[in-house]
């Protein structure tokens, strides 16, 4: 009995005693997040359910949103605009990030500085810069008209195209940085080994670099999507009067119509849109990783 008891004893994983002091460093950021994020967010969600008659729990505001074609168009436009910007940013950022990750040239520093340079100027300033370039009497149209290539200005601003161009410029540095981190994590010996074994450059990119940088691609797409969906200044300035997205619609409801519950509904839907995309992105990434056996 004694020997059996002795034999049945299996080594238990060592458990360190939980001490209050371990959690102390987490306290300041947790308190800060509760006060500046969780509580205001909760208040905003509660506001979205408040009725005009003072009722604390009603779906009237959501019903107003979903029964108005202009508002639904704004939601769809937000998703479309953000999706296009996410794709443009990721496609444009990838070659730059790859160059920065692999290059040993002295120009690398210059390219890096140029890549993040847009962040040195404010969003409004950069957007006004694009307005000067893209508007009907802007640089591009003036040159094209002067050279005789066109007779009427091309519609480059006050529409989706103008906003996508402006936002791509605003968000591009973030896409580059997230891809750079991911590509830097890929062992360069893998590329060398493939090269020695006779793989073409295109094959190396398609079979090694792209699959291994999927986390960076997903992260770039998500960052660009969420930043674009919540952007206000660029759609407001480059989009024109008919280009309404959720962020500009929230501004209108808060400041012009003073309809804060409806503004809260729009803000909640914007949040849901971003959370859905984040969830979909991370799931797609996991599925892709499994498929590629990475």
């Amino acid at each position, binding site marked *: 009995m004694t020997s059996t008891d002795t034999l049945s004893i299996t080594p238990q994983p060592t458990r360190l005693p939980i001490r209050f002091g371990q959690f102390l460093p987490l306290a300041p950021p947790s308190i800060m997040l509760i006060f500046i994020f969780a509580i205001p967010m909760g208040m905003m969600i509660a506001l979205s359910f408040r009725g005009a008659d003072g009722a604390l729990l009603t779906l009237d505001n959501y019903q107003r949103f979903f029964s108005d074609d*202009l508002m639904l168009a704004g939601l769809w436009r937000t998703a479309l605009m953000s999706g296009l910007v996410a794709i443009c940013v990721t496609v444009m950022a990838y070659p730059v990030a790859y160059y920065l990750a692999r290059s040993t040239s002295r120009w690398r520093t210059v390219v890096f500085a140029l890549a993040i340079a847009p962040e040195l100027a404010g969003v409004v300033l950069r957007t006004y810069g694009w307005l000067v370039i893209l508007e009907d009497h802007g640089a591009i149209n003036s040159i094209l008209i002067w050279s005789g290539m066109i007779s009427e200005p091309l519609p480059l601003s006050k529409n989706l195209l103008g906003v996508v161009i402006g936002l791509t410029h605003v968000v591009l540095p973030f896409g580059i940085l997230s891809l750079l981190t991911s590509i830097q994590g890929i062992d360069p010996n893998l590329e060398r080994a493939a090269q020695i074994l006779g793989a073409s450059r295109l094959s190396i990119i398609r079979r090694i670099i792209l699959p291994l940088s999927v986390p960076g691609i997903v992260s770039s797409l998500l960052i660009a999507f969420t930043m674009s969906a919540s952007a206000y200044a660029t759609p407001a300035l480059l989009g024109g009067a008919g280009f309404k997205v959720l962020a500009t619609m929230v501004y209108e409801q808060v*400041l012009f119509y003073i309809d804060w519950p409806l503004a809260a509904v729009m803000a909640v839907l914007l949040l849901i849109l971003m959370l859905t995309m984040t969830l979909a992105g991370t799931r797609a990434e996991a599925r892709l990783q499994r498929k590629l056996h990475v």
Partner: protein
Amino acid sequence: MKTSRQCALAVGFIAAWAPDAISKNLIVNSYGGPYEEIIRERIIEPFEKKFGVNVTYDAVGSASQDYAKTKATGGRPGFDVVVMTASQSLDGCREGLLQPLTAAAVPNISSLNPQLRAIAGECGAVHELQYLSLVWRKDKLPEGLSSWSDLLDERLSGKVMLPTFQNVMAAYLISVMSVTNGGDLLDEVDPGFEAVAALAKGSLGFEQSSAVMENYIKDGRAWAMPFWNGRAQLLMESGLPVDYVRPKEGTVPLIATLNVPIGSENKEAALEFVNFWLEKTSQEAWVTGYKVGSARPDIDVPDEVRARQITTETDLNALLLPDLSALSQRLPQWGARWEREVVTQAR
């Protein structure tokens, strides 16, 4: 013993002096640009000199942003006097965010035109009147304009700038266009929407800010547009070939009010400031400085100013005055119609 008595006296002195010193500060929130220069010279500096109050001028935010801030803080936005529109003044008063201004607290309020006082409600002191005018480039249209319908003239195709609906000018344009085309200011506005939709078809586009709209007329891209007459007058006086008119069908005024948030920390000085701005001499200084009209019919101003501004009972009686509370309630519905019927027509 002697030292502690001296200390007690010093503390007592500071305690007695401190509340008085705090009440001698005042935060006034209004607009920047030319407005700020003129308000400092014509109103704030004379007020500081007369009452010994130190005024801090806060030019951040539009009237809408200031109203939203007042609402969000329950009437404690951090400023003591704010310039708003009569419509915001009515809404703020109804929600208990603004201080009612009685004749006992602001004696000069009794000198204002009673009709305008009634429009602005009990919390707003009308300190300035502008009107929606028709402005045009004299070098492009030497014969000038006289009617709202002139904006639809063939010659102006692609040369008219319009406001977005988030500028209250758009709602007023709907009203005056309705009156011009057989409708009325608030209820029968279909003719107004039809006329503005036709106007949008041949317009340059839409801009929200009056300051941005101004650029189009300055550089000649726009030949004509609806615009506030005070700003139009400043453009004229800057030497641009620009003129403006009160169209023959009449026009709607932009009634600007001084308001004191209910939670103002320097209420006494705030009420004193409002009263000072409504004084006859201050109104004369403001009308001649910022080139606007006044709700005080007894002011003495040069004839050339009187000819352009709203300064007399006759001028006031000729205005089209919509019920601002009713207009405010219709804004969401009008805004949706504007997006569907007007914006979609633009090129």
